[in-house]
């Protein structure tokens, strides 16, 4: 039984935030994986008692601040995504890696689409379909790096 410390969760979230804040530009901005959301989902599946919708909301708020967008846009998108992750959390941890990955991909799409709608409502111009490329990069990162490196669990 491995004890998951709260400190570790916060440290990893801050690290993800720094990666997200890295000055991506041009195509890099479209291809940038959503590091913070990936970290949140990772912990939501493993430690739902520490990492819940509230933490996701606050992380979203931090991103709103950093990106200078309207207060609460990213926060709302993250909260909705976190809801779908937490509701099925008990089933998700019994899934195989591939099943989990496909569900996480769905969650990333939900997040991206919610944000897309919110931004369009706020009067932004759609950046085009490239915008959804970030989901694909994110899921590749999730499947080939995050799960492989940071998940030392034995299968049940």
């Amino acid at each position, binding site marked *: 039984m491995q004890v998951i410390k709260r400190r570790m969760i916060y440290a990893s979230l801050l690290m993800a935030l720094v990666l997200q804040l890295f000055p991506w*530009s041009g195509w890099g901005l479209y291809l940038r994986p959503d590091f913070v959301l990936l970290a949140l989902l990772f912990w939501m599946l493993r430690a739902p008692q520490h990492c819940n919708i509230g933490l996701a909301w606050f992380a979203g708020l931090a991103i709103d601040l950093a990106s200078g967008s309207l207060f609460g846009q990213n926060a709302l998108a993250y909260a*909705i995504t976190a809801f779908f992750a937490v509701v099925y959390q008990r089933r998700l941890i019994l899934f195989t890696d591939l099943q989990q990955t496909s569900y996480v991909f769905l969650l990333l799409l939900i997040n991206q689409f919610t944000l897309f709608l919110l931004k369009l409502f706020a009067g932004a111009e759609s950046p*085009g379909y490239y915008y959804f490329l970030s989901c694909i990069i994110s899921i590749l990162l999730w499947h080939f790096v995050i799960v492989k490196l940071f998940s030392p669990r034995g299968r049940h």
Partner: protein
Amino acid sequence: MEYQQSPKFFVRGPSAFARLIMFATLSLLLIASDARFSYLSEVRQSAVSLLSPFQWLANYPVVLYNDLSDFFTSQANLRAEVKRLSSQALVHGAALQQLKTLQAENEHLRSLFDASKTTIRPTKMAEIMHLGSDPFTHKVIVNIGADKDVQAGQAVVDAAGVLGQVTRVYPHTSEVTLLTDHDLSIPVQVERSGLRAIAFGSGRDYGVNLPYLPANVDIKVGDRLVTSGIDGVYPKGLGVAKVTSVKVSAGSPFATIVALPIAGAQNFRQVLLLDLDHKTAVNEEVSKVREEEQLSKISKGNNNNKSVKKNAGH
């Protein structure tokens, strides 16, 4: 099972759905208040200064890379640059001499016409730290802020032309919205014909649009657009964009005109922030109207007070 640490049976608190409703309501409230009112700008400023160490950390690799590439630049490159710059200085010097006489002549002519004098605005030098991290907007962050008296609304130019406008000021940085952003528009004039128009950022492919111009408008591909100076924000005659396509369709009374900005956040790291010119005719007009409004409000308030007192007396 590593997932259940607590021996308690109901460790989860309120249900996920209740939490979602709570946080969703909270964020909708925040979005609405941020979009409609400006109560949150101070909250945002203080929170951004909390985030700034992380931003600094994230920028550090890029800063380091720039410093290193500056350090290891070859002598040949430096010599070529010195040669280019000194020849440029010669050309500019000759042009400047002409400019001074022209300026004096222009002032004289303007005084003959009784026109308001044009002033040269003081500027502040700034450096672009990074581009904005939101694919929906076109913004850059520059390295000076409220500590150097930057104000929202200042025009930002680089060596080639207008870059955009300062939209938010943080303690040590400020946010510049580029011309190509969906929310920014700029009054322009076609250099060749003197025709005035307003250029709107397209928000998408790094261009600006000139909508609402009739199909028979006198604009050609390659025309230079410069600022017209009637808005009081941008001084007259700065380069803005170059027209790249003019399309006329039979179905629409308007021409579809697209132009590409001359200045580019990708090209230069140093930019100039022009101080706000409070003495323009438009601003004077606006401040007059505001003063009158305030006066009328105060007098109304006095009247109300008097009537209240009268009522109380009765």
